[in-house]
């Protein structure tokens, strides 16, 4: 390509960088000092290594429980629960429209009974659990609190995260249920509830990852995500019941790390600095802990390819290194066979080992922010931040995120970028090894993917039927009626009512439907 050499997001790059490119010293104070460009903690990863958290979950609660116990036995330090699409979209396993999706891309949870099996023999007071759940996040949180109670673990001891970021679902991932306004209300309810009652649990993980996988570049990913973060914080602050310092420490973020090594590092450093300023300046935070940008990431996703699939192992390793040099707090490394299938135990183990080699053999975790002060990294951090601010300002001028989503503007921006990348790959302007260069005739490997068998599905349906038969119909009716009444009012926190519904063994679908009656459903703008 003619013209300047550019990063993946299109930032023009100099041949080399020098002292003149460094920012003012106060923009890069030591690690652990506001605005945290160089990391949240003075001792980097010495005090606490990043959490190694492998996304998994499939089929029945029994099978997933077995995989979780295996991963914990192999040294994983947190769980990351993948739910099937019916659970994510608010349908029970026996709904006629979803039969082929039950237990397919994650585990099926219909009632508290499934959650009890999923976490059987897993000590919820010492393991932290992350749920990739959005539309039904509040319901899953209710399940988790209720399971903890059954295990005798008080809710103040529960640790983990629900993704609970609905805005990006409207744009990129698609597990929306209700329209934006009531959804924001429910999210604010969960944030308040966690701040007051489940203090070690992150009520939200504002996710850029899915914008990225849908086609956004690294700069857009960060900008859109910070805008979403602002939208959620605005919602809670506007209620006037809580100050920013009461809940901001429980807000976390989630991104994809893709292939442009230094741009990814700069993205995390720039995001950390920008968020710190936003929390202090926009919301008047007094506590520095509120200003910290807590980040989890995935190395993999759309940066992985099917042809010559073993190359993905190398891609993920580099991406993992960039994530650590960028200072993330937790990481999931994708398995090489993810472009085709749910990972096997072997490929999932190799992905886990990739992080362990990085953590324990390479030495990169020994010193905080080893790249701090690098001419190039600091200059790129500044430039990424500048571009992020530009995009955010533009979205604010357009009336904010809800507006940009309802009009389809954001969806259009992402589709444009995805198309640009597709053309660059087709034309060869962007090299993908084994895809458009260094190709071989190698057939994509036939991997043994997971298929939930008829027996598994039957067992899931059987249990659901059994729960429906044995629970107290009166309790169910009363709990759902109370939920519906509360949903019609704006000033009642719905979380305690959802916990009551969970304990009465109401199904996910029943709770969702009660709220649909009050709130309606989201209508997607079909932009391409």
């Amino acid at each position, binding site marked *: 390509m003619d013209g300047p050499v550019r990063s993946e997001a299109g930032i023009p790059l100099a041949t080399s960088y020098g002292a003149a490119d460094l920012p003012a010293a106060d923009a890069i104070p030591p690690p652990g000092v506001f605005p945290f460009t160089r990391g949240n903690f003075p001792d980097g990863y010495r005090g606490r290594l990043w959490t190694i958290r492998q996304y998994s979950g499939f089929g029945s609660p029994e099978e997933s429980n077995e995989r979780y116990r295996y991963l914990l036995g192999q040294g994983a330090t947190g769980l990351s629960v993948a739910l099937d*699409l*019916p659970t*994510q*979209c608010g*349908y029970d396993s026996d709904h006629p*429209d*979803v*039969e*082929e*999706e039950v237990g*397919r*891309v994650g585990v099926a949870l219909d009632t508290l009974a499934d959650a009890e099996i999923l976490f059987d023999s897993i000590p919820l007071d010492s393991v932290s659990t992350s749920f990739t759940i959005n539309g039904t996040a509040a319901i899953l949180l209710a399940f988790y609190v209720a399971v903890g109670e059954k295990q005798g673990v008080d809710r103040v001891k529960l640790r983990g995260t629900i993704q609970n970021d609905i805005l990006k*679902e409207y744009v*990129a*991932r*698609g*597990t929306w249920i209700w329209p934006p306004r009531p959804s924001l209300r429910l999210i604010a309810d969960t944030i308040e509830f966690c701040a007051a009652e489940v203090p070690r649990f992150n009520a939200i993980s504002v996710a850029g990852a899915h914008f990225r*996988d*849908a*086609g956004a570049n690294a700069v857009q990913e960060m900008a859109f995500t910070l805008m979403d973060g602002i939208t959620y914080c605005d919602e809670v602050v506007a209620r006037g019941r809580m100050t920013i310092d009461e809940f901001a420490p429980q807000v976390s973020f989630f991104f994809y790390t893709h292939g442009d090594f230094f741009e990814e590092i700069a993205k995390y450093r720039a995001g950390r600095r920008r968020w710190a300023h936003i929390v202090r300046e926009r919301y008047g935070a007094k506590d520095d802990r509120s200003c910290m940008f807590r980040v989890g990431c995935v190395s993999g996703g*759309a940066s992985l*390819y*099917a*042809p010559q699939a073993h190359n993905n192992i190398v891609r993920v390793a580099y991406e993992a290194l960039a994530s650590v040099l960028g200072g993330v707090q937790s990481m999931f490394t994708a398995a090489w066979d993810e*472009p*085709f*299938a*749910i990972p096997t135990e072997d490929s999932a183990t190799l992905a886990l080992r990739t992080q362990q080699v990085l953590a324990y053999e390479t030495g990169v975790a020994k010193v905080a922010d080893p790249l701090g002060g690098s001419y190039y990294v600091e200059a790129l951090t500044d430039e990424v931040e500048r571009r992020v601010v530009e995009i955010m300002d533009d979205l604010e001028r357009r009336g904010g995120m809800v507006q940009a989503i309802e009009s389809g503007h954001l969806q259009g921006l992402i*589709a444009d970028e*995805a*198309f640009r990348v*597709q053309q660059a790959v*087709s034309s060869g302007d962007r090299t993908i090894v084994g*895809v458009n260069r260094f190709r071989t005739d190698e*057939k*994509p490997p*036939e*991997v043994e*993917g997971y*298929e939930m068998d008829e027996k598994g599905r039957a067992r899931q349906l059987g249990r659901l039927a059994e729960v429906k038969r044995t629970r107290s119909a009166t309790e169910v009716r009363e709990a759902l009626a109370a939920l519906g009444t509360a949903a019609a009012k704006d000033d009642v926190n719905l979380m305690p009512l959802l916990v009551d519904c969970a304990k009465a063994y109401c199904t996910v679908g029943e709770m969702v439907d009660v709220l649909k009656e009050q709130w309606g459903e989201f209508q*997607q703008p*079909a932009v*391409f």
Partner: protein
Amino acid sequence: MAVRVLVAKPGLDGHDRGAKLVARALRDAGFEVIYLGIRQRPEAIAAIAVQEDVQIVGLSILSGAHVSLTRKTAEALRAAGADDVIVVVGGTIPNRDVGRLEEAGAAAVYPTGTPLEELVQSLRELSSSAPARS
């Protein structure tokens, strides 16, 4: 006359990057594209295919539920009296499922990584060999 294509994602999977890229590439290649978006029921896809008088229905499925959703869409089209509509399928599809998809009613299958030019060319050929819609 431009070939009319309906692009839709049946089932609950929301990964629409590929579907949108395909929709755009087809439009740029001169097809008339109706893009339905995600989470479409097979019956709704069939109804709109009839209403819009399309020649081709393109399904994009990344969740692994492709065989069942393709079969249901083909059945819904038949039930709507539109069994001459060509159904094609793209997405995360293992080699071993290509035959199963063809049995379920797919005229062509485009697994992840299929170059867009190849897909466009294939749809041109399929549409020119099919009987014209009234």
